């Protein structure tokens, strides 16, 4: 890491640490949401940015894990130490099943994942004796590990921040491993990787399951933040927005999905306070990103830096 980046990272970390005392509870809550959805977007980007697979069913893992935690904690008083891992496990098991979609590629993969997503949403919505139907499951407590319990949104903010940093670093290591490089190879040219003796489908399947596990973890963080979960968490727009976040921020990067989450959630909360057509604004962001900034904010920043750097070189 070069020095400029190190300084930038240190400043960002300091800002993140200072946020709750500097900005108050509303912003703390909103930024917590940005971290959580950023993590979901990161899980979508694991497939999208590195393997070239566009999944529209990630809300399923997110929601199944959130429901599992909520039902265990609220109905059966299972402690966090068991409920949270159970949530991740449930979401990951679903990913093992849905991962069979990697038998297809391209547009079929997209369409199949949409159908999968609707099945999960339909179950959450209609199997009301178990899922609570439309009202969902409410009154989820803050997480607690034995005597160490979270008691405020500020504390929870720091917990999520720590979780996000750990996930980000782990993701970085992972993507530089042979496995991560293999994924990119498949994205660049699957047939070449096959001729090199790679079992590409197995490789993609593993990536899908891993990505589902990460989305499930985001679901755990989400349910403890929201304190409730309902079918909206499993719905198609959540999957679409997660993908949008990754693309707006910049695919194939770690910071990108989080930047994207900040932009999307920030826009939604800010624009909706004064402009009625805020869904149209969101749509315009989609369109603009695809057409003019396919590399997302990270790409724009890179271009600016390149230009700025050149300008600096010219001045003696």
């Amino acid at each position: 890491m070069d020095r400029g980046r190190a300084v930038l990272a240190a400043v960002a970390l300091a800002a993140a640490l200072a946020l709750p005392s500097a900005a108050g509870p509303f912003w703390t809550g909103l930024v917590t949401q940005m971290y959580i959805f950023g993590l979901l977007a990161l899980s979508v980007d694991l497939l999208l940015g590195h393997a070239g697979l566009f999944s529209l069913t990630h809300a399923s893992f997110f929601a199944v894990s959130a429901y599992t935690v909520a039902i265990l904690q609220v109905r059966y008083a299972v402690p966090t130490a068991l409920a949270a891992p159970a949530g991740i496990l449930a979401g990951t098991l679903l990913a093992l099943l849905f991962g069979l979609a990697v038998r297809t590629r391209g547009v079929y993969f997209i369409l199949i994942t949409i159908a999968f997503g609707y099945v999960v949403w339909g179950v959450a919505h209609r199997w009301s004796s178990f899922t609570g139907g439309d009202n969902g499951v409410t009154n989820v407590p803050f997480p607690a590990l034995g005597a160490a319990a979270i008691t405020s949104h500020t504390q929870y903010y720091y917990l999520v921040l720590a979780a996000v940093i750990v996930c980000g670093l782990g993701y970085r290591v992972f993507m530089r491993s042979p496995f991560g490089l293999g994924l990119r190879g498949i994205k660049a040219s699957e047939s070449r990787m096959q001729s090199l003796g790679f079992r590409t489908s197995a490789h993609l399947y593993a990536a899908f399951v891993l990505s589902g596990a990460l989305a499930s973890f985001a679901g755990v963080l989400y349910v403890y933040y929201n304190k409730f979960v309902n079918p909206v968490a499993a719905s198609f727009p959540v999957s679409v927005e997660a993908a949008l976040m990754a693309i707006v921020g910049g695919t194939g990067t770690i910071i990108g999905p989080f930047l994207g989450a900040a932009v999307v959630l920030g826009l939604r909360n800010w624009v909706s306070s004064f402009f009625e057509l805020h869904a149209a604004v969101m749509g315009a962001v989609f369109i603009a990103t695809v057409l003019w900034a396919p590399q997302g904010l990270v790409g724009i920043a890179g271009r600016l830096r390149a230009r700025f750097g050149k300008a600096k070189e010219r001045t003696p």
Partner: protein
Amino acid sequence: MLTSAVLQAINGISLAALLFLLASGFTLSFGLMRVVNMAHGAYYLLGGYIGLTIAEKTGSFALALVGGGAAIIVVGYLIDRFLIRRTGENHLAQVLLTVGVAFVIGDVALAIWGGDNLMVPAPKFLKGAVILPGDVYYPRYRFVLIFLGVAVGVALWLLYKKTQLGAVVRAGVDDREQVNATGINVDRLFVMVSGLASFLAGMAGVAGGAFLTLYPGAEWEILVYALVVVIVGGLGSLEGAMIGALIVGLLDAYGRWLLPEFSYFVLFGPIALLMLFRPRGLFGREY
């Protein structure tokens, strides 16, 4: 019981007719141009709203059908020309772009027509019930819908299989390089086919709006059904869209009648399975 079974069959077929109108355009534009247009549902809704306004102003349902479809040709052309065309063949970008387009269209339509459920006024002679043998009443409009679906299906089929234009399109679906090489104006061909797809979507909106009503969110509800039709039938296949629409329509009607609690499973579960064992759908091909 028997009467119910027959009624449910007609229910399923009439829904299938509507879904076919939407899915055929979707599947053709994919087959020829490799365009995945998620704004197709929004085209349906916008066409329906425009048709509604035409029907209210002129009192003519036929004019509403044609006008709603024609308006979407224009909208669809502009979106295709200035937005979708710029994504090349990147499906991922197309999906995102067209979802964005659908958001914009839906929100603008909400601002213009409001959030109420509006019903396109069908003429008196199309409304009311037909009395079938055994004193069974059935809405006349549904038969009209089935008729419309079949008529469009036959017309598309003839166009596709019997005309020179259809031959070129079929050739294009099979091998685009080859069509390019024959010196046919591929660009004009694309514009025509995407215009046809837009027209069908807009007209479906008017036809469906007289039966399912129009309201914010209808664009996604109908799109998901149409996508399932296309998945089952296989992308790019006209036969697939026909068979797929029938399967989805009948599954929906019988599923809701026999297993009401599990209607989502009945519709999407088998389709997810089909995908795993026949991922390209019934008539799909490798792309």
